[in-house]
C-alpha cells in the first residue's frame, strides 16, 4: 500500500505552520531560529514529494541546495547570536528592544 501524495503535502504544510507559529510566539532567539529550520525542512519535504509526483530528480537536487544554504545561514546566524549575547547577556527577544518599533 502506498501513502497518497496528499498526506505528505498536508504533513509538510502542518510542519511549516508549526514553524511559523513557533517563530511568532517563542521568545528565545535559539528557539526562533530552530522554528525557521523547521520551516525549511517542511519545504524540503514538499520538494521531495513533488519530485516523486513528477518523476523529476530536480526537486531532490533542490533539497540538497536548501540544506547547504541552511547550513551556511546557521553558521552566520549563530555567530550573530553570539555577538549579540556578548553585548546584552540575554537571548530573550523581549529584552532586545533598544530600538522600539
Amino acid at each position, binding site marked *: 500500500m502506498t501513502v497518497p501524495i496528499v498526506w505528505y503535502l498536508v504533513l509538510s504544510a502542518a510542519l511549516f505552520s508549526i514553524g511559523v507559529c513557533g517563530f511568532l510566539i517563542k521568545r528565545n532567539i535559539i528557539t526562533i531560529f530552530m522554528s525557521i529550520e523547521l520551516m525549511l525542512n517542511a519545504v524540503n519535504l514538499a520538494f521531495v514529494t513533488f519530485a516523486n509526483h513528477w518523476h523529476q530528480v530536480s526537486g531532490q537536487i533542490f533539497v540538497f*541546495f536548501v540544506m547547504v544554504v541552511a547550513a551556511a*545561514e546557521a553558521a552566520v546566524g549563530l555567530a550573530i547570536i553570539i555577538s549579540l549575547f556578548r553585548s546584552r547577556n540575554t537571548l530573550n527577544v523581549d529584552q532586545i528592544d533598544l530600538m522600539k518599533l
Partner: protein
Amino acid sequence: MNEPMTPSMIAFSPALRILPEILMTLTGVLVMLVEAVLKPRTSRKPLGIVAILGTLAAIAASVYQLFLPAGTAFFGTVQSDAFSVFFHLVIGCIVLVTLLISLDYFEGHTSFVGEYYALILFGATGMMLMTCSVELLMVFISLEISSISTYILAGYRKRSATSPEASIKYFLLGSFATAFFLYGIALCFGATGSTNLYEIAKGVADGASPLLLTVAFGMMLIGLGFKVSLAPFHVWTPDVYEGAPAPVVGLMSTAPKAAAFAVLLRIAYGAFGTAIHIWMPLVWIMAVLSMTIGNLGALTQRNVKRMLAYSSIAHAGYLLVAFTALAPMGIAAASFYTAAYAAMNVGAFGIISYLSGYNEARTSLSDFAGIARRHPVAAAAFAVFLISLIGIPFTAGFFGKFYVFTAAINSGNAWLAVLGLLNSGVAAFYYLRLLAQMYMVPVEPPREADTAHARPAFILAMAILVLAVFALGIFPGRILDLARAGAATFSGPANAASQTVPVALLRR
C-alpha cells in the same frame, strides 16, 4: 533551455554570461586573502581601492554583455540580456559609490575592515546573479548569497549596542522570509513540474492548477516583499536601518531591493505573465499599503535614519505601482525607478554617515538644526537628495514618479496614481521639515567638537550621486532607452532568447 543556435552564438564561452559576477568574486577572494596577511594595525584603504577597481571592472563587463546576443547559459539557469545588464549597472554603481563612502568611514575604529569590503563584493555578486537568473534554484542561491552578506554587514559596528540588534532582527526576519519564498518555489514546482521560469510560464499558460499557482505566487510575493520591505512585511525596516552603519544602510536599502524587484519582475511578467489576474490584486493592495503606511509612519519619526527607513517603504510602494501597468511600460518604469531611487537614497545615507560619524551620535531631527551654516556643501547635497525624494522637477525622483504614474494611468489604474500622488504630498511634509530644520532653525553652538571633515573619496562619491540625480531628472533619455530595451526582452521566451540588444543604444 535550448536556444536556437545562430553562428554568432557558438563563438563565445558561457562564462561570459556571468563575467561581472566572476570578476566580483575573484576580487572578493583576493581582498580576503590579502586581509589575512596584513598586520592588524595597518590601514585597509588599499584593499578598499582594490575592491573599487574590481567593481569598475565588473561594471565594464556588464556593459560588454550588451554586445552579446541575449541568451541563456549553464543549462538555462542564467540569462544575460538588456534587462539583466540594466540592473547589473544599477547594482554596480551603488556598490562603487558605497565603497567610496566607506573608504574612510571605518578608518581607525575597527580592525579587519578588509572583510567588510569582501562582504560587500560577495553580496554584490549575489545581487547581480539574482538579476540574471531565470531558474528559481539560481534565484534562491543568489538571494541567499546577497542576504547572508548583508546580515553580517548590518552588524558591523560590533562595539555599539544597536548594531548587533539590527543584525539579529534582519537575520531572523530575512530567514523567515526566505522560508516563505522557498515554499512558494516548492508549490510552483508542484504545479508545473519545473523550476525554470520559462517552463513555469508554459505551465501557467496551459492552465496548471490555478489554486496552487495562486498560493505559490502569494508565498513568493511574501518572501520578496520582506526583502524589499513592502507594507505588511515592513516591520524590520526602521529598526535595522537605525542600528546598521549608515553606509551599509545606503547599500542595503537600494542594491538588494533592486535585485529583488528584478526577480519579482521576472517572476510576475515572465513566469506568471499570462496569469495577471492572479497577482494584480495582491500587488495593488501591497502598493497602496506600502505608500500609506510608509508615509504616515515617517511623519511621526524624530530619528532621521528611521524617517528615511519609512520613506524607503513608501518608495517601494511607488515602485510597485509600476507593476500594475501593462507589460513593457510597467517594467521600464519600475526599472527606471530603481535607478532613480538608488541615486537619491545612497546619497542621503552617505550624507548622514558623514554628518553623524562612525558613532552616529547625531541622527535625531534636532541634531540637524543649522547644519547648513556649519557644513554648507554637505547640506546643499543633502538638500538635493531630499528634493529628489520629494519628487520636485529636474531631479531623478520627479521623473521616476512621473514615469511610474503615467504608466499606471495608461493601463487604466488612475486611482492608484491618484493615491500615489496624494501620498507624495504627505511625503513632502516630512522631507521639507528636515530641510527647514537644516536651513531655517538658528545655529546653536555645537555641543561637542565637530570632527566631520570630508575626504576626497567621499566628495567624489557625493559628486557622482548629485550628478546622477540631475542627469536622471534632466536627461533621462539614455537610461530610459536601456530600461525600455530591458523591458522588451519580456515580450516572450522565444524572443528573449533570440533578440539582440540594440547596440546603437550605446553609440548615441
